């Protein structure tokens, strides 16, 4: 039980990179209410107490993200497959992939009746990007001209043309910039927000499909009550009478509530119940891949892991891990073995990259490669994988270590760090001197989000300090392409290099594990593993 509780805390933290965009169904077909559906029935779903006030630019963990996504509408939203669909925007156009002209739909309002204008977006973005406002999503404005990570600097690239038109100039061409615009950092704010941002964050006024039921609808540590926002005219049409998100500190309690018919939708199964939940719930169980990629990173600064020797050793390690067995035995099939560095739910993903053979379990080849590396410089010591001991990581780290140990005949073990905070601190300040577990949950559905921050030389989350000019060049080329297919081809070329260099050893993609109650239907999960709450119907 204890383990579970701790697991949950850490899942919440680990998912902090997750900004959870509201997914959406692609339209009418799946959201048509069935005859028995009751349009006034309130859906209950699990969540966790938001860690920050509900301000879009300051929300980057799932607890707050799922609420923010429900009560705000950005320029675009993503359908269940991750395709961006205009929400508040009427059109987003560009001729050079550097300056984008954004036109808003006319006559949109926030739930308090004030109009949604170009300024609602531009001022909110300026607020989010200003360093002294200390917004957690500040780095999302980095592509826009004028952004500074180290000083207060207005986004000079934002120009208001009229009430429903504004332009965004980036500091360098980036063709998939519009794909990012469904992320919550880019949501608009009403003018009333700026007077007292903290107070606004406890009773936010948004422009999304739902709004807070009352100024006190957020009962801290208990639940938040949302009702449909009748002034919302976008594509995410609400098919139920409201949404109550209950906060659980312990996922076990949420699972018991689902079984006891006290909860309609659960988006995560506690690890203790992973082995049995598909039996318990039958067809109401959900287990499908999502946009979460897991790996362990071996920093190039570690002895024996740079240059030619490093490349051989990384490939040997990767080929000595039996991913199929580990995902089956340790995770009960709730992980999918990785075949690249991204995720199967992302447009452009393929399981047939030519370099992907380095991710196949191949003990003989692994031994051969390790011996070749030993010829360059003999191995000594123990290969260790660092992880935070307050999460559910020990089982798989031990399994991976054993797989390496048995295949290569070297000492391998886990290196637990007591808390998530201590673990991330040592990774961030580069003081960790072992390999370490890494995970990535995409913020927007593009290959670039899985690759550029992690493996480009100047990448913001390049914790392994990997640098390869060929990879950097392909990333730059990809972002300047005008067609998505051409850009995806560049990213795949880059991935083929990464599969040789293996700055991180890909392990598996996380699945969504969830379930829903007997009285709800039309439950589906978006590309980012968030349930599409607005489409759910309840009898």
């Amino acid at each position: 039980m204890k383990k579970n509780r701790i697991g949950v805390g850490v899942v919440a933290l680990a998912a902090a990179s997750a900004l959870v965009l509201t997914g959406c169904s692609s339209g009418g077909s799946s959201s048509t209410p069935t005859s028995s559906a009751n349009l006034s029935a309130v859906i209950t779903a699990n969540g966790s107490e938001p860690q920050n006030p509900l301000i879009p630019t300051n929300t980057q963990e799932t607890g707050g993200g799922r609420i923010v996504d429900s009560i705000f509408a950005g320029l675009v939203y993503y359908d269940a497959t991750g395709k961006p669909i205009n929400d508040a925007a009427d059109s987003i156009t560009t001729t050079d992939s550097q300056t984008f002209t954004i036109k808003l739909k006319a006559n949109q309002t926030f739930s308090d009746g004030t109009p949604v204008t170009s300024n609602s977006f531009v001022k909110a973005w300026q607020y989010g990007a200003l360093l002294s406002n200390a917004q957690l999503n500040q780095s999302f404005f980095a592509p826009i001209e004028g952004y500074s990570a180290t000083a207060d600097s207005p986004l000079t690239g934002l120009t208001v043309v009229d009430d429903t038109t504004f332009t965004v100039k980036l500091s360098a061409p980036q063709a998939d910039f519009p794909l990012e615009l469904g992320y919550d950092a880019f949501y608009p704010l009403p003018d009333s927000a700026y007077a007292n941002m903290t107070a606004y964050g406890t009773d936010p006024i948004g422009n999304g499909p739902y709004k807070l039921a009352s100024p006190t609808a957020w009962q801290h540590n208990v639940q938040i009550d949302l009702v449909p926002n009748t002034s919302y005219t976008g594509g995410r049409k609400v098919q139920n009478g409201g949404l109550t998100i209950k906060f659980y500190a312990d996922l076990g309690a949420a699972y018991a509530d689902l079984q006891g018919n006290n909860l309609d939708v659960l988006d995560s199964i506690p690890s203790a119940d992973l082995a049995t939940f598909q039996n318990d719930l039958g067809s109401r169980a959900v287990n499908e891949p999502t946009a979460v990629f897991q790996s362990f990173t071996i920093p190039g600064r570690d002895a024996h892991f740079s240059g030619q020797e490093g490349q051989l050793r990384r490939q040997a390690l990767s080929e000595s891990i039996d991913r199929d067995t580990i995902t089956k035995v340790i995770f009960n099939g709730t992980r999918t073995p990785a075949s690249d560095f991204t995720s199967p739910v992302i447009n452009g993903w393929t399981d047939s990259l030519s370099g992907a053979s380095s991710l196949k379990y191949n003990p003989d080849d692994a031994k051969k490669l390790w011996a070749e590396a030993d010829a360059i410089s003999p191995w000594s010591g123990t290969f260790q994988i660092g992880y935070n001991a307050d999460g559910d990581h020990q089982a798989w780290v031990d399994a991976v270590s054993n797989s390496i140990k048995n295949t290569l005949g070297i000492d391998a073990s886990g290196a637990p760090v007591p808390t998530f905070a201590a673990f991330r601190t040592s990774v961030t300040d580069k003081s960790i001197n072992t390999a370490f577990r890494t995970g990535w949950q995409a913020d927007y559905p593009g290959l670039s989000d899985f690759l550029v921050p992690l493996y480009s030389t100047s990448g913001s989350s390049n914790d392994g300090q990997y640098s390869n000019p060929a990879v950097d060049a392909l990333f730059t080329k990809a972002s300047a392409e005008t067609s998505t297919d051409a850009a995806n081809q560049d990213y795949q070329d880059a991935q083929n290099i990464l599969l040789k260099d293996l700055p991180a050893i890909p392990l598996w993609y996380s699945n969504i594990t969830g379930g829903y109650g007997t009285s709800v239907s039309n439950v589906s999960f978006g590309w980012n593993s968030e349930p599409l709450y607005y489409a759910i119907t309840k009898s």
Partner: protein
Amino acid sequence: MGGYILRRLLQAIPVFFGTTFLIYFMVFAMPGDPIIAMFGDKTPNPALVAQLRAQYHLDQPFIVQYFIYIGGIFRGDFGISYSGVPVGDILLRTFPVTLKLAVIALFFETVFGIVVGLISGLRKGKLFDASSLVISLILISLPIFVIAFVGQYVFGVQLGWARTTVGPGAPVADLILPALVLASISFAQIVRLTRSSVIETSSLDFVRTAYSKGLSRNRIVPVHILRNSLIPVVTYLATDFGVLLVGATVTEGIFNVPGVGNTLYQAIIRSEGPTVVSFVTVMVLLYLVVNLIVDLLYGLLDPRIRYVK
């Protein structure tokens, strides 16, 4: 007696400073940077981290942080949680829930514990006594989370007699199951305490005298035996009330009770210094007060006990 109370209350002052200092220090010494942990598996921009550290005074030396916090408490300001809610408000919202849960649990353990203990004591060695002994042994040896999970699964999921978790506003009906779980272990203790105390009292001279005077058993048992057997039980109950008040983290977690234990647990996970310290401080003070009341109760129950100035 007034002087005694005053002296005990004065003793609470160094305890208050000692505990806040110690707890604050322990939160401060927790490994890792809570600001970096806010960003999950992402690596944050160092300038932004510096801004946030300054906002929560985390860039100050420990002793400065401590005095900023203590200074706030004397102005009635317990600090602000990361989600922008004043910690004082959280305290005001969670303590009544835990208080309600504690009172219900106390009610169950008192009523059932004393009744069963009394019958056991009066029928020493009989079938009822033997079986209540076995049951209390089982309850004492079971970890509370096992009782909680089984209770939740059987009564909540399978039979549907109770809600699996506690709903908004923590209505009494929802709190009965978690209260029974909490009461179960103390129930076993009270049974054994009452039983041995009743056996002891039953063999005392004044009970024999009462019988020989021809008083009826219906009068002797409640008035002479039970009343005089209750001193150790009342002491235990008062202490147990203190324990229940400072939160039952495990049980509150399993039943998702929005009380003290659950909230404190989440705050620890997030390294939210002000929340953790304020909660623990209030708990310590409550515990001191309850202990004082227990000590005063001795005097009321047993006039032979006197308090020296």
